[in-house]
């Protein structure tokens, strides 16, 4: 179980964290690995801070609980950091992926973070430009597998095509694929 990767998403209700963790888990499992996509539900409203979790491994695991010590934190909405301790329980070498238009160094200063490694991607802008809506979850999935290469970009794109086909117009499928690819390509690291 040594290769178990635990990822905690911080987001707000309505930004698509639930869809993201479930889609990623499906993609990883279909690539014949083990994964879990666990949204943390509640009577949450649109805009309320929420958490969601991903676990990836090449071995079976049976952890049906929240993630308290994440290897990766995904911050889908940076404003959540003002009200939630998004770095709680992280390791010294944990990775933080932040949806923000700032460079990683500035995020470090603002979060007053001493450890970890910061990655940024302007997922909201990518979403606006590709999907025409500020839905950062799709580009964020692309960015995440760049720094956690548990599956290839192609596997993720195939999963999204499979999920969307028949439910959305070809234009929307294409826009989502473009958003994922751009998320994957446009990650900045410290």
């Amino acid at each position, binding site marked *: 179980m040594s290769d178990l990767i635990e990822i905690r998403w911080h987001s707000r209700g309505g930004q698509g964290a639930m869809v993201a*963790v*479930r889609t990623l*888990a*499906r993609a990883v*499992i*279909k690539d*014949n690995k*083990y*994964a*879990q*996509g*666990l*949204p943390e*539900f*509640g*009577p949450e409203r649109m805009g309320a801070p929420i958490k969601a979790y991903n676990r990836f491994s090449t071995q*079976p*695991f*049976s*952890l*049906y*609980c*929240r993630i*308290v010590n994440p290897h990766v934190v995904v911050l889908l909405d940076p404003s959540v950091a003002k009200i939630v301790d998004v770095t709680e329980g992280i390791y010294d070498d944990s990775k933080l992926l932040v949806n923000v238009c700032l460079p990683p160094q500035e995020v470090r200063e603002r979060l007053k973070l001493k450890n970890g490694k910061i990655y940024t991607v302007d997922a909201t802008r990518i979403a606006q430009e590709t999907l025409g809506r500020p839905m950062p979850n799709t580009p964020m999935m692309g960015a995440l597998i760049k720094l956690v290469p548990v599956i290839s970009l192609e596997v993720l794109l195939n999963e999204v095509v499979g999920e969307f086909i028949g439910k959305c117009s070809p234009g929307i499928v294409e826009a989502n694929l473009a958003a994922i690819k751009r998320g994957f390509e446009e990650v900045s690291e410290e």
Partner: protein
Amino acid sequence: MARLAALTGNNAAAEAIRQIKPDVFAAYPITPQTELAEEVAQFVADGILDTEYIPVESEHSSMSVCIGASLAGARAMTATASCGLAYMWELLPTTASLRSPVVMVVVNRAFNAPLNIHCSHDDSMGARDSGWVQLYSENAQEMYDNLIQAVKIAEDETIRLPVMVCMDGFIISHAVERLLLLEDEKVKNFLGEFKPVHSLLEVNNPVTIGACALPDYYTEHKKQHSEALRRSLDKIMEVANEYAKISGRSYSLFESYQLADAEYGIVIVNSAAGVTRTVVDKLRKEGVKAGLLKIRVYRPFPAAQIVQALKNLKVVAVLERTDSFGGVGSPVFTDISAAFMEAQTKEKPLMVNYIYGLGGRDVGLKDIGKVYANLQVINQKGKIEKSFAYLQARE
């Protein structure tokens, strides 16, 4: 070839229902079962499941529909949670004592108040005396496997009892995980056609079902029901063995994990068993003889087998996601205590009862680790100071 799938617990139950192909599915949506009810409705609407889907106005009606359909000779299923199960309560003992082989998914959720949509086992544990068979599932795979087996158990001519199959709300019902599915054909052949012993629609062979029984005959009805439920234990194992042949996955009445030489044991139900197993692995590496007993079949209660599995342990904690307010302890605890009383074994462990995880309170590795640490302290002292406690609660 088995199919690799990535599904939520609700998806897995819906997939099993699609393969089981009930003649009638009557359900009312309730969180966290809603996705399941929707998915089955979608299968029917898309024409890939030939089932009479009856969107009832309440759970009282869903079970009433299932009873009627079942007694008319149909394979009938439903699914519910929490208040929904409470609302159909009147019909639960009716279903069982009418010997209708209805199969129901219960997505475990807490009872109000305060209002809570998350996991406790209040609902199904509260229904333990209604005369149903109860199976519990740690994860989506077990929900899928148990649900298919449930139909075979329920419809067996010697049993003819309804079966409740439970999984944890949200923790399992809404989480995507990896599982293996059987081919449709295998499930179809495993279950066969439902052949009712009597059918209300057999006009040439009319029978009366659900008649009035006054003090002169009521007792005999209940005795037969009680005996059928008790003897279903053997049938449940028979079905499990048969299922192992087609699936490669073995099930017992309960899971014994590292129990054979264990000194410290936790008895637990549903998803938290997964966390406990992980803690057992860690403790074993440190040289602590920890073990786990995960309940699968809770009704009928495999008393003698559980006594055998636990009698040589030093200290056992029964962890439960519900309370029996004002009782000696929570449901599984009192059953195990009674089982030891009945068995009169010389050896028996010291036993404590902890309530955990209410209303979805997360139970993690640290929480379970603390319990095993407690059990070691109890063993050192040689006595129990507090046999009943709420874990994780603010004082």
